[in-house]
């Protein structure tokens, strides 16, 4: 008995050490980004235009990259949200069981599993080449919208399913058509949770590099974006560009850390807002 308890103690001790080690490694990534990024962070860095000197050293700030990331993310959502939400509604209110339902759900899961670089290829083939949108904000936003789609579909479906069935029956008993019950009764109740899905989706696509790599992002732009057919700078792509094309590695690295801090702050804030929302919801 004593020996067996000892075995359990030792096993749990080893597991704890490994786990804490991994968790510390993860936590230290936040710390590294914060410490290195904070050094270059100031108002000018956030708002002014980027420039490179003849040695390839970056100067100025990341204003256009912040603007670019906000614009493609926002525009991507404009495309993805209506379709994603309607699609989620279809899966919860229209086709919520049976063979086609299982198949559709699997397709959504598969769409979520498509490598982001493949999305990039698809965007290149369809939006850039076939639709002739060129390397542009529009092409990138459309590509990112496809990435956002499965996240929005799944959260909408789950949010709608969580709405008690009594409300559906109540509205059907009054003579509602299916869409009336879905959109006028169930959806308003599901809306807060749907919004968390939209936030998660934007956090996801704001950080994506590969889909914008050859659909519209560029490493250098001398101005803020003004039209949808322009190329644009994006925070994640600028990190990649600085780390792989620059000659002056030290200066580029600290610049890249500044961008990383901005990006991670943005994304983490979005995620934390979802966590806080869930906590409030749970207490009510």
């Amino acid at each position: 008995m004593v020996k067996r308890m000892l075995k359990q103690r030792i096993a749990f001790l080893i597991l704890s050490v490994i786990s804490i080690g991994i968790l510390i490694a993860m936590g230290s990534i936040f710390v590294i980004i914060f410490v290195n990024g904070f050094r270059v962070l100031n108002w000018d860095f956030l708002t002014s235009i980027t420039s490179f000197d003849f040695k390839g050293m970056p100067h100025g700030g990341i204003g256009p990259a912040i603007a670019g990331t906000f614009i493609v993310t926002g525009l991507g959502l404009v495309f993805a949200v209506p379709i994603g939400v309607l699609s989620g509604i279809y899966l919860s209110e229209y086709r919520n069981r049976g063979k086609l339902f299982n198949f559709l759900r699997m397709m959504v899961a598969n769409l979520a599993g498509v490598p982001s670089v493949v999305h990039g290829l698809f965007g290149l083939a369809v939006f850039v080449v076939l639709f002739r949108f060129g390397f542009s904000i529009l092409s990138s936003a459309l590509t990112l919208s496809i990435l956002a789609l499965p996240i929005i579909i799944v959260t909408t479906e789950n949010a709608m399913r969580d709405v008690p069935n009594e409300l559906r029956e109540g509205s059907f008993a009054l003579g509602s058509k299916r869409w009336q019950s879905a959109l006028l009764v169930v959806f308003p109740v599901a809306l807060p949770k749907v919004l968390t899905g939209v936030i998660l989706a934007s956090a996801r696509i704001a950080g994506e590099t590969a889909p914008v790599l050859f659909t519209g992002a560029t490493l250098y732009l001398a101005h803020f974006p003004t039209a949808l057919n322009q190329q644009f700078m994006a925070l994640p792509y600028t990190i990649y560009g600085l780390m792989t094309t620059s000659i002056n590695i030290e200066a580029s690295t600290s610049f890249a850390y500044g961008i990383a801090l901005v990006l991670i702050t943005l994304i983490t804030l979005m995620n934390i807002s979802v966590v806080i929302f869930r906590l409030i919801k749970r207490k009510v």
Partner: protein
Amino acid sequence: MDIDLKVEDLSVYFGQKKILDSISIEIPSKSIVAIIGPSGCGKSTFIRTINRMNDRFDDFYSTGNIIFKGRDAMEYPVEELRREIGMVFQKPNPFPKSIYENVAFGLKINGIKDKKILDEKVNKSLMAASLYEEVKDRLSTNAYKLSGGQQQRLCIARALAVSPKILLLDEPTSAVDPIATKQIENVLKNIKKDITIIIVTHNIQQAARIADYIAFFYMGRLVEFGKSEKVLNSPKEKLTEEYLTGTYG
């Protein structure tokens, strides 16, 4: 005696399981018909089949006919049938909207937009459900702020707003307190002059208090149907008598 609803040889199945076994009944208009019987006897299934609420289930199917106003219920567009045959559920289920929006919902989805008509119908329905005096100053507050009994009367008002011919109630007082139960019973007695009421109840006293007719269901079959006093005081069937005297159930 007018008859709007006639059920002929209705059997209902869920998958392999037979829930209702050749029910035939004629519901006298503008009266209160109480459906009683032990739990699991098919009472709820019966009224949910009338307004076709069971259609949503894959394994549900039925044989026989439900004739509403001379036409088979299956021939109606389901939305129209449900407008004509309203329903109130066991648990109050107001929408998470304002009191006003709850009552106006059925009208709005039927395309009524005129504010004056809406206001009038909402007020009338709330009055009919004896809720008007309690809520007239706060029609825009959320329905969830109301007490359970008030919510249930709101659901009745909501059902009445679309002027149904028949109102189905599935144990409407089982989730509310005795005072609210009394209020709801009074509402039903008041509105039966305009509307046919079919109420499922497991409470024999309630049936005695309000019903003009009583139908006794047992294991999916309609055992006895007739005027309340007759069924209650001198039942024809042994099963009914045993149920009423509390031998089982």
